[in-house]
């Protein structure tokens, strides 16, 4: 079930990158794809009827879902916000040079030079 949700979200993100003309929308589409792939990786480790992978007084012995995908996604999320900030700062510089963020206007201004 969750597989289909993440596939459709990836499709929406690709559609956004192909159709939108504003550079900020590119960043938004990339973030949507990022979230969808995180959901997909987590869903590869889910086992029905098993519990959270933490030893506690409620689950004293191991009856856990797969902890390996969670460990991979945990760092990927924080890396995601770092690269997003890098992209946003690049957009600020692009705006200061061309005074617009629409792709076609940037191409026109570049061709006129």
């Amino acid at each position: 079930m969750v597989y289909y949700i993440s596939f459709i979200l990836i499709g929406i993100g690709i559609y956004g990158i192909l159709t939108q003309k504003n550079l900020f929308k590119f960043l938004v589409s990339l973030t949507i794809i990022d979230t969808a792939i995180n959901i997909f990786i987590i869903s590869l480790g889910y086992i029905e009827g098993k519990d959270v992978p933490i030893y506690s007084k409620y689950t004293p012995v191991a009856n856990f879902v797969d902890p390996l995908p969670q460990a991979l996604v945990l760092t990927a999320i924080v890396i995601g916000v770092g690269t997003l900030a890098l992209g946003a700062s690049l957009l600020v510089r692009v705006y200061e040079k061309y005074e617009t963020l629409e792709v076609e206007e940037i191409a026109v201004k570049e061709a006129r030079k």
Partner: protein
Amino acid sequence: MRRVFALLISLGLILFFVNSLSILPEYGNVELSKVSNAYINKSVNGNNEKVKFGESKDLEDGAANVVTSIVVDYRSFDTLGEVTVLFTSALGVGLILHGFKRKTYGRLPNFILRVSVGILLPLILLFGVYVFVHGHLTPGGGFPGGTIIAAGILLLYLSNEEFDLSKTSKFVESYAGSLYIVVGLVGLAIGGVFLINFLPTGVVGDLFSAGIVPIVYILIGFKVGAELSGVIADLYREG
């Protein structure tokens, strides 16, 4: 026309993914792999005993949270690389937006916000520190704790026109990163492997357990918090 082609391309992609579902296991019926079993039983080197909460002691890795023990102990070298990627992106933001002065708007921030930040900010910082100190017992750890601290710094920026992050954040960041490598090198000197868990691991579930895991997670928390606050400070500069 462009939208139609884009729709066709993304629909084709979704169909391709759905067709390749047959090579994946069914949702909810995944088999635990051998590696995951070894991580859960904390027996990579082969002594097969079941772990019990509050009783087992002196294991390879005493963290009660299995995800933490994977991130910070078994795959710690990987985490070192990821922290380096984060550092590089924060450095890139600082280089691209090379500002010196803090941007001001010339009006006093909201009175209610200013007063309540005095009450809220210590609680937020305390909560962030709690999250990464207890990272080996409860959900959480260095990455979310550092993010919560950065959110507190953002609140301080919103409520105060004069506040500007000084050099302290760069200091904290660089020293936390270096100490992480120093911990790894001490492990190399004592146990012969980079980043080996050389301290006694204690009983599963105690606060003082799990060897170097809490130490490394505290360092990661400081580093991530300083880096993300630095990103916010760079976005506030002008120049």
